[in-house]
């Protein structure tokens, strides 16, 4: 044993390793458990500086026998008085200014103490992930490292008696700085501690061997300080040394304070407070609702004061208001951008409405509140007036980067200094954000990205800061990037690390021509398990111009009269191996995103459009599902195998249709295709008989002028029989695969489900249908629903049925990915397709779910063992959550892109079109125009001369008014067919282009 002295509470185990105990209290749900963990301290943690001569002697290899690489530059940047220096960041800097840390133009050679990393992880997991990525980048540009100060015997500090944990952690950070400063003294490298915590800065005295700076002070010393300073987050009162920012007038508008943690936990446990996600109404940004398991309908939250700073999507704690304050869902449409337009960003005045309307609410006791909850449930069963609640706490913010533009009327055009301006966000459910910038004038008419930093109770609007300028409003680049950002789509090019995972041969990669070839087998021992299907007459059928061909098909009559049908799917998992950077990137993107003029790939082009794509005339690896089907398209047998195929032809839907219809074609390929068509019709009929739904969405397609890439015309999507041919076999393959992987992995199989819609979703639609057309939609089963939809026919109007289908679609639940352990078998059901189990298997190039399904199927047929990643429920849960989110975002992004281009088309041709009224409000109507697939609100002001004379009939969904101009009396009902003037206008306040509809 060593004779070295060991500090109290530590026990030396061997040279350079001591152990101590960490004691803390875990209070969860009101409990209080004492927890003790061992904590080992060591002396072999290197400083990671290339300048250091000592640390290379203490290196220890990791589990993969790799030695750590040194990252910090031996010659770091020299800055004025700071000299050559490394930066140590404090937690508040990371949480506040992650964007700045990621900025390629500042912050190099940064040390992140472990305690900071831990604190960041506890406060915000996404920021933690970004920080970790930055530290793991390894590309010698930013040079960030994590220093495990908590495990280093020289930098670990014990908490002093009575010391708060924050103070202890701050001391640990300072100790780390001190150690580094000492350690690198001879190399002439200074240490700068960057913290916005004034007390932490003041704890460092002249005696100390390192320097501290606030973010602002540090930015001041940078060569590009003007540019950087603009990007500094706008955090209220965080930097009291900066007098300019600190002089916030505190007499501003105040929101109610949030409840304490103890109060929230107690309230949740006893059932007087509830937790849920806020959904802000699409039509009224001052009205939100929270879906709570205890209530059959969402609980309303009305007004700025009651929403209490909640953003759309935040996870909040709500408390019911007294019954006298319950409200009906408003029948008023209200946009944030047109509300309080004249608010001055410098002086937040009192809002006129809702001031302290709940002054008395907090006096009622929890016992009374519990009774209130019972009344609330009863009231929901009755009509109209809804239990109304207010937000008393926010447990998780949904804040991300937002795209918007500066509200021109908030800018002082004369000023060239820093000023407060409002940014109006593209998402109209969100409030405007107040930012400080010096470049307000320059940024007018630009799409800009901002981040939200804080929303103190004393500010009417949240505070944020400018992040990036996307370009001029209405330019294609800016708008496309904006919509990708808005929908959280990762569109940056693939990183070098990801591209390194691709085959080195690139486009020259070849499928081995002989799969028995010993040399090829040596390279890929799994080759022996592949089936050679190059003799099958396989072809692919896709939309015209398709380059990423996921699937191909073949059919052959068997001697016994049955059909052999094969579906061959691109073998993506041959190239994308679990645990690689490529896999991680695919998993995080989750799906490819299709915009009108652009595709954002999930996997690099090389795979998607070449090596994996089942192109004709070349050998490709595939994953094949081969059935034996009888004449009625019943499955006699199914087999799964990895294979090598050669597609004979790549057809477009139309070409395939032509070939099938051409009775002169009698070759085997065509015969196979005819058989496929024939079988697919039977499959479809069986599906419909089982109750599969045929829903509709107002989807349109924008034709691009191929030369100018200007949008030409808009067309409603058409379907051919061959579309349905491919679709049916893909469904069949997905179902067969789902059964197989569920059988092999009952707990973690990657599946997709679609829940039956709750009847409440259809209440309003059914009421409207009943009132206006005397029709109903039955919800007994999907079959009943499908049949009742078929019956919703207006003999005078062929489009009416489609309209009902569109509106029904909006009442349905969204399908979701899940792992089989998450639900019980009966809940696996896919309601829309009317099957008991389903997954996605057929498009691994563009969906990550399919990649997982491929791997699980490969393991199920003993091709290769399944990665632990896909056998672990928690990891599968994370994968599912992510791809569900990405899938939804991709859909929204696609729609937004179409909407933008439709707007561009309409801009050039104003016209009068047929529209349908789909919603009637107190102060306007919503009209859907099928031709453009757009819908828009027509405000009462634009309908009637005298707004106050208009009458709204809630029961009949009727708005009566005297029409503008003509003076004629009009009654508008829901479902009415109307002629509307459609034009595209640029909103002067928000600079957003949208369809403006006017009743003709």
């Amino acid at each position, binding site marked *: 044993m060593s004779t070295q002295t060991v500090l109290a509470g530590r026990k030396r185990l061997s040279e350079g390793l001591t152990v101590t105990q960490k004691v803390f209290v875990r209070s969860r749900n009101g409990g209080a458990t004492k927890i003790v963990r061992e904590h080992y301290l060591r002396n072999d943690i290197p400083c990671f500086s290339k300048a250091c001569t000592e640390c290379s002697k203490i290196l220890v290899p990791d589990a*993969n026998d790799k030695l750590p690489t040194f990252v910090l530059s031996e010659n770091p940047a020299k800055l004025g008085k700071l000299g050559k220096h490394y930066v140590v960041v404090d937690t508040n800097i990371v949480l506040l200014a992650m964007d700045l840390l990621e900025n390629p133009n500042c912050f190099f050679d940064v040390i992140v103490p472990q305690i900071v990393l831990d604190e960041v992880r506890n406060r915000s997991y996404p920021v933690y992930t970004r920080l970790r990525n930055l530290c793991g980048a390894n590309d010698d540009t930013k040079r960030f490292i994590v220093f495990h100060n908590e495990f280093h015997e020289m930098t670990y500090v014990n908490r002093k008696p009575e010391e708060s944990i924050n103070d202890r952690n701050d001391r640990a950070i300072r100790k780390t700085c001190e150690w580094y400063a000492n350690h690198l003294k001879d190399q002439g490298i200074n240490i700068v501690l960057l913290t916005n915590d004034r007390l932490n800065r003041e704890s460092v005295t002249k005696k100390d061997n390192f320097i501290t700076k606030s973010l602002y002070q540090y930015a001041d010393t940078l060569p590009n300080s003007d540019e950087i300073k603009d990007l500094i987050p706008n955090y209220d009162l965080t930097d009291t040394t900066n007098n300019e920012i600190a002089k916030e007038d505190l007499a501003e508008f105040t929101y109610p304070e949030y409840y304490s943690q103890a109060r929230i936990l107690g309230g949740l446990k006893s059932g007087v407070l509830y937790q849920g996600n806020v959904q802000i109404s699409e039509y009224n940004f001052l009205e939100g609702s929270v879906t709570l398991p205890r209530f059959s309908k969402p609980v309303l939250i009305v007004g700025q004061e009651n929403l209490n700073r909640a953003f759309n999507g935040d996870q909040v704690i709500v408390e019911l208001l007294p019954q006298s304050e319950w409200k009906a869902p408003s029948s008023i449409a209200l946009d944030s951008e047109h509300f309080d337009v004249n608010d001055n960003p410098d002086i937040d005045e009192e809002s006129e409405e809702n001031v302290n309307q709940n002054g008395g609410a907090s006096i009622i006791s929890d016992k009374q509140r519990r009774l209130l909850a019972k009344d609330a449930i009863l009231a929901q069963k009755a009509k109209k007036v809804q239990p109304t609640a207010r937000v008393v706490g926010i447990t998780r913010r949904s804040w991300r980067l937002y795209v918007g533009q500066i509200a021109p009327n908030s800018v002082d055009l004369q000023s060239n200094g820093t000023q407060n301006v409002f940014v109006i966000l593209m998402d109209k459910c969100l409030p405007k954000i107040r930012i400080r910038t010096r470049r307000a004038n320059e940024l007018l008419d630009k799409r800009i990205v901002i981040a939200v930093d804080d929303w103190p109770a004393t500010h009417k609007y949240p505070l944020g800061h400018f992040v990036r300028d996307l370009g001029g409003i209405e330019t294609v680049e800016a708008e496309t990037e904006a919509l990708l950002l808005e929908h959280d789509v990762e569109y940056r090019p693939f990183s070098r690390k990801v591209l390194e995972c691709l085959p080195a041969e690139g486009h020259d990669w070849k499928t081995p021509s002989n799969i028995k070839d010993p040399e090829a087998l040596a390279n890929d021992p799994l080759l022996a398990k592949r089936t050679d299907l190059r003799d099958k007459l396989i072809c692919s059928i896709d939309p015209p111009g398709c380059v990423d061909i996921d699937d191909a098909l073949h059919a052959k009559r068997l001697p016994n009269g049955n059909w052999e049908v094969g579906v061959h799917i691109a073998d993506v998992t041959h190239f994308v191996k679990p645990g690689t950077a490529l896999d991680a990137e695919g998993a995080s993107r989750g799906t490819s995103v299709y915009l009108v003029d652009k595709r954002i790939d999930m996997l690099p082009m090389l795979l998607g459009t070449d090596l994996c794509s089942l192109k004709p005339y070349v050998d490709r690896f595939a994953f094949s599902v081969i059935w034996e089907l009888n004449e009625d398209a019943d499955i006699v047998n199914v087999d799964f195998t990895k294979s090598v195929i050669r597609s004979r032809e790549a057809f477009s839907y139309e070409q395939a249709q032509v070939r099938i219809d051409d009775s002169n074609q009698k070759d085997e390929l065509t015969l196979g295709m005819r058989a496929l068509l024939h079988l697919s019709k039977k499959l479809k009929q069986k599906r419909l008989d089982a109750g599969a739904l045929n829903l509709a969405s107002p989807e349109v397609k924008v034709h691009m002028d191929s030369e100018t890439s200007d949008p030409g015309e808009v067309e409603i999507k058409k379907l051919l029989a061959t579309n349905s041919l491919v679709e049916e076999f893909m469904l069949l393959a997905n179902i067969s695969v789902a059964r197989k992987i569920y059988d092999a992995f009952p707990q973690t199989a990657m599946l997709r489900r679609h829940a039956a819609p709750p009847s409440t979703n259809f209440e309003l639609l059914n009421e409207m249908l009943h009132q206006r057309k005397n029709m109903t939609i039955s919800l007994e089963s999907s079959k009943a629903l499908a049949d009742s939809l078929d019956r919703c026919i207006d003999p005078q109007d062929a489009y009416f049925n489609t309209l009902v289908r569109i509106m029904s679609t909006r009442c349905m639940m969204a399908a979701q990915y899940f792992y089989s352990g998450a639900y019980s078998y009966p809940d696996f059901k896919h309601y829309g397709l009317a099957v008991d189990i389903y997954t996605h298997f057929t498009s691994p190039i563009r969906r990550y779910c399919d990649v997982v399904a491929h791997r699980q199927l490969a393991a199920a047929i003993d091709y290769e063992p399944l990665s632990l990643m896909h056998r672990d429920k928690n990891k599968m849960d994370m994968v599912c959550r992510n791809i569900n989110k990405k899938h939804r975002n991709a859909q929204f992004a696609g729609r937004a892109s179409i909407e933008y281009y439709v707007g561009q088309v309409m801009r050039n041709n104003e016209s009068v079109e047929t529209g349908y009224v789909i919603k009637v409000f107190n102060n306007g109507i919503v009209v859907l125009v099928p031709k453009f697939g757009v819908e828009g609100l027509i405000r009462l002001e634009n309908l009637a001369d005298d707004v106050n004379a208009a009458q709204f009939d809630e029961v009949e969904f009727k708005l009566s008014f005297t029409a503008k101009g003509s003076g004629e009396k009009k009654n508008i009902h829901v479902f009415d067919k109307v002629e509307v003037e459609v034009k595209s206008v640029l909103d002067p306040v928000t600079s957003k282009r949208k369809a403006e509809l006017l009743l003709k």
Partner: protein
Amino acid sequence: MSRLEIYSPEGLRLDGRRWNELRKFDASINTHAHLSDGSSYLEQGNNKIFTLVKGPREPSQRSQLDQSKATLNVTVNITRFSKFERSKASHKNERRTLEIQTSLVRTFEKNLMLQNYPRTVIDIEIHVLQQDGGLVGSLINGITLACIDAGIAMYDYISGVSVGLYDTVPLLDINSLEENAMSCATLGVVGKTEKLSLLLVEDKIPLDRLENVLAIGIAGAHRIRDLMDQELRRHAQKRIANSSKK
């Protein structure tokens, strides 16, 4: 749980150890001379275990009498306060406890020279005062030490350790946090050999990774064997010193 850095990119575990490092291993023998024929107290990490060996002695029940060899009984008393949260129910007749007892009997039956003590019983009584992961491995170490203290003839040391597999990284001598986060295997290794007298795998470990897991486990068990050996020699030296004083 999954949000913790079980194994950081810098190669450190939650408690600051590297992948191939044992926890603190503190053992002493002959701790309960009054109560038993052989005893040991073991602290492996935050596991704290008393092991008492009583015997070889005459069986109290005739049914336990075996003409050819000694009967080995192991009772494991996992106290209700051994984890952070006090458990509501006693662990005495839990299935898991019975399973552990059986596997311990199997492990030591082959290693103790029971044939030397026919018509007797050897009772091993274990009290787990505190546990923090890798329990079965620690129980094995405690028994080995107590049996040596009791002077029961045995072929070799048996040393136990648990190894977890985090993604692809095997982690030696896991604590309870790690145990909950990954699948793991417990090994009982005979002396300095690569022979296993116990292998418990309670979750899935891919076959292609098992070899790695076993390799690091065996290396760790060998180190534990040396630590036990040290303690025994230290203790013996002390005894010799004491007796020569008299």
